[in-house]
């Protein structure tokens, strides 16, 4: 595992250097040409000391090869790059999580999911436990975000949690943790930022060529054939046109490769590749499409959410490899390590993924047996988390059934579906009037407002179980939920403003 991580880092560094070189080339050539064009435009010639008559080949050579234009171009490129980096790296998580209404899950909310993530953390050796978020969406999908290891988070949808058994869920979480361990999120963000900068720069250069062409042709016809001039012109134009396309190809190729690597990491961590394979099958077979994904966030998901429902195009511009290929490779594995994944990848698809040099010292690992499935009941509690946020009240019947009652249910009683007994919906009861004590009435101090006595309609609710969530209805109909950690003596209803004593 460590060899793969190290090789990953080296390749990422090479990629970043490559993109930086492209950036600098575009910046330099574009800057040179634009600067030269501006400097020699007849309007500005007098500023730079050129007159119509004195303009000739030597002047051109001087201005071109002193490189000021190029430096300015590179400087501009770096400024744009820095600006975009700052924007991405300070806001990444909030932007990505913003439109998703994700709720953070604590350990008590869903012990099994928490345990699954904890197990993967141990298997991967991640230093920090990622936060877990739940998104209320029937489409099954999952993603990982994390600018720094301490702030990393994994989000799953309720659709995913509901459909998969323990091994499959563990495969998916292993894949996401593989992304975190390989630092894919930071890397793809960096690559995206560089890609964006290349695009911006090339747009600037292209626009200039398109609209400033007249200037060029007039000047170049005047000073004859500078061979170097033509070469730099051609190179600059080529990079400006092809640069964005090449950079995009590189970006998406990287994204696909990272997905395969995350699959390999998942197999290595869980020692059970069939888990992830059948999870991918189930996710790809689901017909709902994710409601909140867009192009910017698509690469982070386990399956491309934009094409999941409709089937995928297997193009060089897709951020994820085709699901059936991923499943094929996983199922062709005869062991559970990176070396086995590499062998399976070569058999199933041809071509190398990780590289034999890296895998020389990697070991073979055997696949473990599937785990016994715990009852699916233990994961329905994630749905309870969601229902709680929607104001549902939970009643417990003596026959063992738990009933979720939505807010706004008009009646005061409900019949249990299993045994038929009638349950009353707990409501805040009017406080029993305490016997008026003369000594209890505070003295009226002149100059200070008279004391406020408790109103006759004071409400109170008596808690029966302080170790779990309890809910009751306020007199106005609003459901109020008390968490096990609630220990104040009063609560204020957010709808009507009444204060209810909690005893």
């Amino acid at each position, binding site marked *: *595992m*460590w060899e793969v991580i190290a090789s990953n880092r080296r390749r990422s560094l090479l990629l970043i250097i490559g993109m930086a070189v492209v950036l600098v080339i575009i910046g330099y050539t574009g800057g040179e040409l634009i600067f030269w064009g501006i400097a020699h435009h007849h309007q500005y010639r007098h500023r730079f000391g050129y007159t119509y008559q004195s303009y000739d080949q030597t002047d051109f050579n001087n201005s071109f090869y002193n490189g000021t234009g190029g430096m300015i171009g590179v400087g501009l490129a770096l400024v744009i790059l820095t600006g975009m980096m700052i924007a991405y790296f300070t806001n990444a998580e909030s932007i990505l999580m913003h439109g998703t209404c994700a709720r953070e899950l604590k350990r008590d909310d869903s*012990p*099994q999911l928490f*345990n699954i993530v904890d197990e*993967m953390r*141990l*298997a991967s050796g991640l230093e920090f436990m990622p936060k877990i978020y739940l998104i209320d969406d029937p489409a099954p999908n999952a993603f990982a975000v994390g600018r720094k290891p301490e702030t990393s988070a994994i989000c799953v949808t309720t659709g995913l949690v509901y459909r998969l058994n323990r091994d499959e869920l563990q495969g998916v979480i292993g894949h996401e943790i593989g992304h975190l361990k390989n630092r894919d999120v930071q890397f793809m963000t960096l690559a995206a930022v560089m890609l964006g900068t290349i695009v911006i720069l090339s747009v600037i250069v292209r626009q200039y060529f398109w609209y400033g062409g007249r200037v060029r042709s007039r000047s170049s016809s005047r000073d004859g054939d500078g061979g170097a001039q033509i070469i730099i012109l051609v190179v600059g134009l080529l990079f400006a046109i092809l640069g964005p396309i090449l950079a995009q190809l590189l970006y998406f190729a990287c994204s696909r490769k990272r997905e395969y690597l995350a699959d390999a990491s998942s197999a290595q961590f869980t020692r059970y590749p069939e888990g992830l394979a059948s999870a991918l099958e189930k996710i790809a077979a689901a017909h709902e499409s994710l409601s909140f994904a867009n192009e910017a966030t698509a690469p982070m998901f386990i399956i491309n959410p934009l094409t999941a429902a409709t089937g995928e195009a297997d193009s060089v511009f897709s951020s994820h490899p085709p699901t059936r290929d991923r499943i094929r490779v996983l199922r062709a594995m005869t062991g559970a390590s990176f070396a086995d994944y590499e062998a399976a990848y070569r058999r199933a698809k041809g071509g190398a993924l990780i590289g034999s040099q890296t895998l020389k*010292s990697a070991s073979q690992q055997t696949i473990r047996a599937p*785990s016994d499935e715990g009852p699916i009941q233990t994961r329905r509690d994630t749905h309870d988390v969601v229902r709680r946020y929607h104001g549902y009240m939970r009643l417990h019947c003596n026959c063992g059934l738990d009933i979720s009652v939505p807010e706004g249910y008009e009646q005061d009683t409900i019949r249990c579906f299993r045994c038929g007994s009638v349950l009353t919906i707990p409501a805040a009861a009017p406080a029993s009037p305490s016997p008026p004590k003369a000594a209890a009435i505070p003295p009226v101090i002149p100059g200070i407002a008279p004391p406020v006595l408790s109103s006759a309609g004071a409400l109170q609710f008596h808690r029966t179980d302080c170790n779990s969530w309890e809910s009751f209805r306020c007199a106005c109909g609003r459901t109020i939920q008390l968490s096990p950690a609630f220990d104040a003596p009063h609560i204020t209803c957010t709808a009507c403003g009444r204060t209810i004593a909690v005893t």
Partner: protein
Amino acid sequence: MPIVIILLLVLVGFVFVVLVWIAGAYNGLVRLRNQLENAWAQIDVQLKRRHDLIPNLVETVKGYATHERGTLEAVIQARNMAVSAKTVGERAEAENVLTGALKSLFAVAEAYPDLKANQNFLALQEELTSTENKISFSRQFYNDTVMTFNTRIEVFPTNVIANMFHFTRHDFFEVKAPEEREAPKVSF
């Protein structure tokens, strides 16, 4: 530029590169060793957690499976032995025995539907299963890291650094179940 100065610069550059490499190799070894120690500590944490969960489990089961006294006592005994084991070998043995006892307890609990519907029992079952998984995952991570670490301190360039700074080989955490240890008996 005189050739001497060029050569000198090349030499300085070379020495610089070598120093950087040494620093990198040393840091890598240190990181791996810390990961190793952390993984070992994690195994310990999970084992202890299992010990702490068992009394609760036994109490819950007692209320429902009143006829299964034997199985319950086996579990309690195995747990006490695991807590009191001292050397690594003893601990590995005791933990194995405890795993076996828990397996038979859960198998027995299958026959009691009331017990299986009890929320407390289900939560405990989930916790114990998860703890077993965590033990095996942290063990797996520990072994993977040990292999990488041992390889690195033994292959050529890095073994020089390793010897200089006294990095030593670590052992694998290998626990074979008692059944696996015995040679297969063949009888006709």
